[in-house]
C-alpha cells in the first residue's frame, strides 16, 4: 500500500531538511580537507562542491514546490523501530557476552519483531531451538572450519 502526497499542496519538508543536512556535510568536507595535502584534498573537494551544488538545486526545487515527495511504504513503526533496536543491541552485546550468546538472543529477538500473531509455548520452544541450532551451525562452521576468531565476552 502506498501513500502518495500531493506535491502541489505540501512542501516536501523531509527532502528539504535532507538537502540542508547534505549542504552542511559538504561544508564540513571542504573545511576538513583544508588540513590535507593537495593530492589528498583534490577529489574530496571536487565531490563536495558537486554535492553542495546538487543540494542547493534540491533546496530550490523544494521551496518552489517542484520536488515531488517520495512514496512512503506503509507499515508498523513499532516493528521497524524494534528491529533497529534489536540489531544495535545485538552488536553491542557481542563483546560483552560473546558472539554465540549474543547471536542466539539477537536471533530470537529479531524473530519476535517479524511476528504479528501471538506466540504459544511450543512455538517459543521451537524458536529457541531453531536459534540455538542455526547460530550453532554457523558459529561452528566459521570458528572451526574457517578459523574465524570470535570475541568470547565474559560468558561464551
Amino acid at each position: 500500500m502506498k501513500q502518495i502526497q500531493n506535491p502541489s499542496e505540501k512542501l516536501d519538508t523531509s527532502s528539504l531538511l535532507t538537502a540542508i543536512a547534505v549542504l552542511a556535510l559538504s561544508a564540513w568536507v571542504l573545511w576538513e580537507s583544508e588540513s590535507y595535502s593537495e593530492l589528498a584534498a583534490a577529489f574530496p573537494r571536487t565531490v563536495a562542491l558537486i554535492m553542495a551544488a546538487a543540494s542547493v538545486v534540491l533546496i530550490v526545487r523544494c521551496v518552489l514546490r517542484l520536488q515531488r515527495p517520495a512514496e512512503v511504504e506503509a507499515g508498523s513503526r513499532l516493528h521497524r523501530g524494534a528491529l533497529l533496536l534489536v540489531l544495535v543491541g545485538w552488536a553491542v552485546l557481542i563483546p560483552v557476552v560473546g558472539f554465540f550468546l549474543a547471536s542466539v538472543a539477537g536471533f530470537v529477538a529479531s524473530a519476535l519483531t517479524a511476528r504479528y500473531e501471538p506466540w504459544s509455548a511450543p512455538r517459543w520452544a521451537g524458536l529457541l531451538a531453531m536459534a540455538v541450532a542455526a547460530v550453532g551451525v554457523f558459529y561452528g562452521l566459521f570458528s572451526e572450519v574457517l578459523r574465524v576468531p570470535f570475541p568470547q565476552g565474559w560468558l561464551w
Partner: protein
Amino acid sequence: MDILSHLLAALSPFHLLLAVGGVVAGTIIGALPGLTATMAIAVLTPLTFGLPPESALVALGAIYTGGIYGGCYAAILINTPGTPSSIATTFDGFPMAKRGDGDLALTLANFASVCGGLVGALSLLLLAPPLAQVALAFGPVEYFWLAMLGLTLVAALSEGSLVKGIIGCCIGLMISMVGSAIVGGDIRFTAGSQALLGGVNIVVAMIGLFCIPVLIELVATPDAHLKVDQKLRGFRIAEAVDIGWKGKWNLLRSSSIGTVIGILPAAGGAIASLVAYAEARRASRTPERFGRGEPNGVLATEAANNATVGAGFIPTLTLGIPGTPPDAIILGALLVHGVRTGPNLFNEQSSIVYTFMFGLLVATILMLPIGLLLGRYAFRTVIAVPKHVLVPMIALMMILGTYAIQNSLGDVGIMLGLGVVAWLLSRVGFGPAPIVLGVVLGPIAEQGFVQAWLIGGATGERFETFFMRPIAAAIIAAAALILLYPLLSKRLKPTVTDSEANSKSE
C-alpha cells in the same frame, strides 16, 4: 591432437567431480551475503595443495565461477547482492521477484551467467595473448574515465529524481574516501575513530546499504515477502529461452563488455556489470522499464560479471598480473604448485594451462543444470520460509558475514550505521543503488584522477593526458553517448514520426 588430449583430461571423472563440487560450493558461498567469491577461494585454496596443479586449477576455477554466479540468488530474492559483482542484478532482479517473477529472474540469471562465462572462458582459450595487451594499454587516465563511464549510470538509477541520485552518488564517493588516502596516505574523514582508519570495506557497505533497509521493511507488515502464484511454474525455461533469444545481442554485448573489463587489473565484476547495465539500458528501445523489473537488465549484469571470470585469468596467466582479487589468490596457489606464469607458460606448461581452460569451460557448462536446481531450491525456500524465520536468518548472516570479512566488530558497527542512514534516506527518496555506485567506483576514480594529474603535470601535457589518448577518448565518447542518448533520441523521434506520417499520407 594435443588439444584433444587436454580436453579429454578436463573431462576425466575426477576433474568432472571437482568441477561439480567447486560449482556447488562456490554457488552456495556466493549466495550468502557477506561471503564473497574471493573468500570462498581463499578458504578453499589450501584444500587443493594436495592435488596435481591442473586439478587444483580446475577446482579453483569452478569455485570462482560458481561464487560469482551464486551472488545473484540473494540479489534477486532478498535485494541484497551476495557478492559485489551482483550489485547491478538487484536493480531489476528484485523488482521481478516482487511482482512474482522471481523464478524467471533466476532462470534468466543462470542462462546469462553460463553465456557470459562461456564467452569469457573461450576468450581465455582462444585470444589470451592478444587480449593481454589490452590490460597493458590501460593506464590511470583510462581507469579514471572507465569509473566516470560507470558513474553515468546514476542517471538510470535515480528513482524519480536525478538530483537525489547525484547527491546519493556523491555520498557514496565520500564514503569511499574515508580512511587512508589512496595517493598521499593522509587520514581522511575518520572523526578520530580507529575503526575507520582502514576505510569502509565495499562488502561491508554493500551489506549495510542494501540489506538493512530490506530487513526493516520486511518486518513492517505481515504480508508475504515476495508475490507468488498459487501454482509454481517450474523453471520457466521456455519463457527464459524466448527472452534470452530476443536479447541475444544484449547478451553478446554484455559478455564482451565483461570480457574486456575483466582483463583490466583491479576492475572486476562489479564494474563490468554496472557498465554492461548502463549500455543495455542505453541500447534498449524501452529504457524506462530498466530498474522496474526488466529481464534484459538481469541478462546484461549476469552475463557481464561471469564473463570476467575467464577474462580475469588472461592477464593472470599471460602477464602474472591478477585481473581480480580471486585471481590474485589463484596466482598465489599457482606459485605454490610451481607454475610460473608469463608468456612462456603456454609453451612450457601447456598441459596444465589448457586442461585448466577446458576445465573452466566444463564447469561453466555444468553451472547450467546445477544453477537451475539450486536456484529453484533457493526460490522455494525463500517463498516458503515465514518472515519470523527469514528475518533472523538474514540478520544472522549479515552480522556473521560482516564480522568475518576482517574479524572486526567495528565493521559490524559501520554496516549497521550505514544501513540505518540508507533506510532513513530511502524514506526521503534516496535509493541505495547510487550510493553503492559511488562506493564501488570512488577509489578507482580517485586513484586514476590523481595519478593522471601527476603524470600530466610532470609532462606538462595535462589536457592531452586526460583527453587525447585514444582509449580514453573512446570511453569519453561512450559516456557522452550514454548521457546524451535519451535527449538525442527524444529530439529524433518526432522527425521519424513526421517522415513516417508523410510517407503514409503519400
